């Protein structure tokens, strides 16, 4: 959690502004420290994820085929 401050002499007012203006989870250190927990993917969700991945790979193949056809 080492975050070096770059400014030479940051002002006390700046700190007050941070405290009153930012939500606690907007602080960069808070964001670095706390992460959203991992969620469990259900069976149907996994199927949709994989289906769209296969769709993308297949369609990229189609694009490459079109380029190959165009280059001939």
């Amino acid at each position: 959690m080492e975050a070096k401050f770059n400014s030479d002499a940051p002002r006390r007012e700046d700190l007050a502004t941070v405290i009153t203006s930012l939500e606690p989870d907007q602080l960069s250190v808070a964001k670095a420290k706390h992460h959203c927990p991992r969620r469990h993917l259900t069976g149907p969700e996994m199927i949709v994820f994989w289906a769209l991945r296969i769709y993308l790979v297949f369609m990229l193949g189609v694009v490459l085929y079109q380029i190959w056809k165009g280059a001939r």
Partner: protein
Amino acid sequence: MTDRGSETETPRTIAPATPEFRVQQADDVIITHEDIDRAHDRERVWATRQQHGMRSRLRLLWLLIGPGVLVMLGENDGPSMLSYAATGARFGIGFFVPFVVLTFLMACVVQEMTVRLGAATHRGHAELIFDRFGPFWGWFSVADLALGNFLTLITEFIAIRAGLGFFGIPPWISVLGALAVLFVALMTHRYWTWERISLGAAAFNLLFVPVALLSHPHWGNIGRSLLTWKPLPGGITPDTVLILLADIGATVTPWMLFFQQSAIADKGLTTRDIRYGRLDTVLGAALATLAALATIVATAPLFIHHMSAANFEAAEFAEALLPFVGQWGAALFALGIFEAGMVAAVTISTSSAYAFGEVAHRPHSLNLPFRQGKSFYLVLLLEAAAAAALVLIPGIPLVYIVLLVNVIAVLAMPPALLFLYMLVNDREIMGGLVSPLWANTLALGVVLVLIGAGILFGISVIAPKALAVLGGT
């Protein structure tokens, strides 16, 4: 979570001014330069909220707009404007005029979700995907983004080169000049300043409007096409499908999701700002639609006069338009193409840098001084420099790259939208801000349209004769 949320919490003790401020709360919190810059921006928003009347509301809008306008005008980039120009030149005023309006409505539906997600979580898109779905799916998503962004960046420098090429500027000067502009905008080390410079540059996207007016458009035809979605010369052919896909790819692409959500988090928008975030997005979409339609209208004379635009690149479009819009019109068109490439080079490289920082857990903010955000700025600059260098290689097949970019963007959208859809419906991170039924219906509609367009493209490549079923030739 509310704006100035600390008002309802235990007051924090302010520590003495030392190079590292520490605030004694439940645990030690280090406040960084990035936080201070963001807090100053938020303070202005808070102060404006305390005032009443139309003037303060307009000021609030001025303070809160940015990510939405930038993402929409940024997406009106080099290949997009080239797609619209090709649309006007090949099909004239007809089906594609209302179709482009529809694609921007789709973009609004999609980008509104990123506004809510960014404001509710204060996290970037890549970070949320990694955290919620794990690194396996996270890397897939970031790989899609990295590939798409790099290819798109190349086309932005093609646009920059071609746009300035119209004025006789050598490619290497154009490309180096663009890199210098990118560098100067970043060296402000302040999100607010960077955003205002980029917004100022993005306003030049509207240069296509005077070009359209100089082409003396037939307003009756434009109105009729908007109402009837006709004509579509030639029907559904492989050529039509390619333009269809290119025009969709010109409005909804994965980098937009990553950019707007990360920019909203960087700007510091909170749940109280969502209404203005939506306004920002709609305003951006309206401006971008105007510029897109203007480009189609501006190049429609090429269709009317049966001039083939099959192999036109940006500068050739400007030259071909000379007889119809004059020297000034053609110059504005070329300048517009340059602007489109320049602004998109800034926003797209920024979206890559945000995503890199989020997944590598490195500092990622435009409020960071260079020393603190070295990796963020270096990713941004190196990606842009690599793309710029490729454009200068003689003999590289630029037309194929331009073609690839918009098509890949459309094809990569459904998986990217699935992540967005699941995140924005995730009650654990969104609380009460999950999508209502109508928003989910619209989002699923967008996914279906994108998958349908992708499949249609596949058919047009593998079995073009099958398009005859749809009334094509």
